[in-house]
């Protein structure tokens, strides 16, 4: 992929399934220096080149788990992680790992569109440039915008501010910006929650296009969206722990989207996907 990156510098761990992209092993994440446990004991194998969806009720820790996958939680004071997150067999939370390098390889699109206060062109060029991109920048900007289904709308105003776009267009600009860095994985936290159905469909088409080259993990509250875009689905839920007051999130069930929505093993999953929840 990106020629400027240097894959040979990662040590490989043993007994690692080459089909697995991200592997969560007994991951528990807490806020407030361990006072508030957000999610507990998550085991998950996220395969390469597939779209994996996280669904579940509000506050069950989907965003928390997603942010743990590229060490975004490092930015939140007092947030701690127990267990292991392996990326290509390598522990992301190893002391020697550089979180900046992690985020270059595992990009993220946020729930709220957050373009930089720069031109549309610069929004995309910024990430590529700081990652040492040497090629033709115009070409990269065009191809990224095309992949994010924004090229037709933005090609005549590349020099204008990113804020001059509508909310849906801004979100696609943020996706284009993430693509331009050429990560291996793209994490999306409810990327369509502020969008109209047409923009949503465009982004979903984009995702189908993107999964040929990227591994995608998406958090969504929209069941139809999960069934439309994802190959695998993880259902998160909140439970009461025996020795802990308050609700704690956990991964209730994880498997093929097909199976989760049609014949889930757990009653809670059945209730949630059929809309009979809570």
């Amino acid at each position, binding site marked *: 992929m990106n020629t400027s990156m240097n894959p040979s510098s990662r040590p490989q761990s043993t007994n690692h399934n080459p089909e697995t992209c991200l592997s969560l092993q007994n991951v528990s994440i807490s806020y407030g220096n361990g006072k508030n446990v957000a999610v507990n004991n998550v085991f998950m194998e996220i395969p390469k080149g597939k779209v994996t969806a996280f669904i579940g009720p509000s506050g069950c820790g989907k965003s928390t788990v997603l942010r743990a996958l590229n060490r975004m939680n490092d930015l939140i004071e007092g947030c701690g992680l127990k267990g292991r997150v392996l990326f290509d067999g390598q522990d992301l939370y190893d002391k020697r790992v550089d979180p900046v390098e992690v985020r270059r390889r595992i990009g993220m699109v946020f729930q*709220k569109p*957050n373009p930089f206060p720069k031109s549309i062109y610069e929004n995309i060029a*910024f990430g590529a440039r700081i990652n040492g991109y040497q090629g033709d920048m115009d070409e990269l900007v065009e191809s990224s915008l095309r992949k994010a289904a924004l090229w037709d709308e933005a090609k005549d105003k590349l020099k204008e501010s990113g804020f001059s776009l509508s909310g849906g267009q801004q979100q696609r600009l943020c996706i284009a910006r993430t693509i331009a860095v050429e990560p291996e994985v793209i994490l999306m936290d409810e990327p369509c929650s502020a969008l109209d159905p047409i923009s949503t469909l465009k982004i979903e088409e984009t995702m189908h296009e993107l999964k040929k080259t990227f591994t995608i993990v998406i958090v969504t509250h929209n069941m139809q969206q999960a069934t439309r875009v994802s190959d695998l689905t993880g259902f998160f839920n909140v439970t009461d722990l025996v020795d802990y007051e308050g609700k704690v999130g956990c991964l209730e069930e994880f498997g093929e989207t097909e199976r989760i929505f049609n014949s889930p093993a757990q009653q809670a999953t059945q209730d949630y996907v059929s809309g009979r929840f809570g």
Partner: protein
Amino acid sequence: MYWRNGLCVVSAYVILESPMTTSPLASSGHRPADVAKSTLHRQPNLPRNRWNAVFTVLAGVFAAIVVLPLLLVLAYVVIKGGSSMSLKLLTDLPPAPGMTGGGIGNAILGTLIVSLIAALIAIPIGVGGGIYLAEYSKSGPFASFVRFGTNVLAGVPSIICGVFVYGLIVATRIFFDQSYSAMAGGIALAVLMLPTIIKTTDEGLKLVPQELRWGAIGVGASKFVTITRITLPTAMKPIATGIVLSIARAAGETAPLIFTALFSPFWPEGLFNPIASMSVLIYNFAIMPYDVQIALAWATSFVLVMMILIMNIFARYLGSLNRI
């Protein structure tokens, strides 16, 4: 308490209602039902509308009192100092006592030099400190101590800054065995500017939405790149405005300069020699028994006030700039 309130309301009521006897509405109370139903038109005689009018006028009067000193100072300085404006005045040296003619060229240049030294010292330190507070410090005791110290420093009288730099630099002759110097004056003004710059940087950076930082970090930017390429440029407006205002404030200071830069009737001779400045020139000349010098002091006041006014207008212009 209750009866006093009641009395108050009643007396206010009496005052308001009494002139209304001529009004046909007055007889049926302060809000006649038939009128309320029949018309939506504004009734200027209603108590609430009268109170509104009273307070609008009152607020306007106070606002006028607020800007009055500014207008008076400006008018007075323009009348007393503006009349003697000429190119010669801006470029010549002041005359010796008893002589006529001359100008304030050295003082203008001196103020510019000392302010520039102060800005060159205070901007990097102040912006750096603000960046530390907003971006690096994890709301620990050190950060709150620095914030507290900044607030205290902002309240320290400027003469204390002068005495401090006098004791630190002038009395110890630390720079090439020189005592009073432009450099010492610049340092004293820098101490005065620091708190403003630190605070505006800190607050300007805190206004930058967190999502923007996440966006940059999410595409693999390091903390340094995020700050220098995204966060700082986004907060440029308030920071630049704060810097310009702090320079404008420091440029007019007298007390710290008397103790540090002193004065010189000649053109600046270097950074480590005493230097003239407009504020100290005013201080020196205004109390001299010569009309020429007193006229020069007025002319200097005019130039100084105009300079500060222009810087404030420039700061407003910076604040109104729209970043892409």
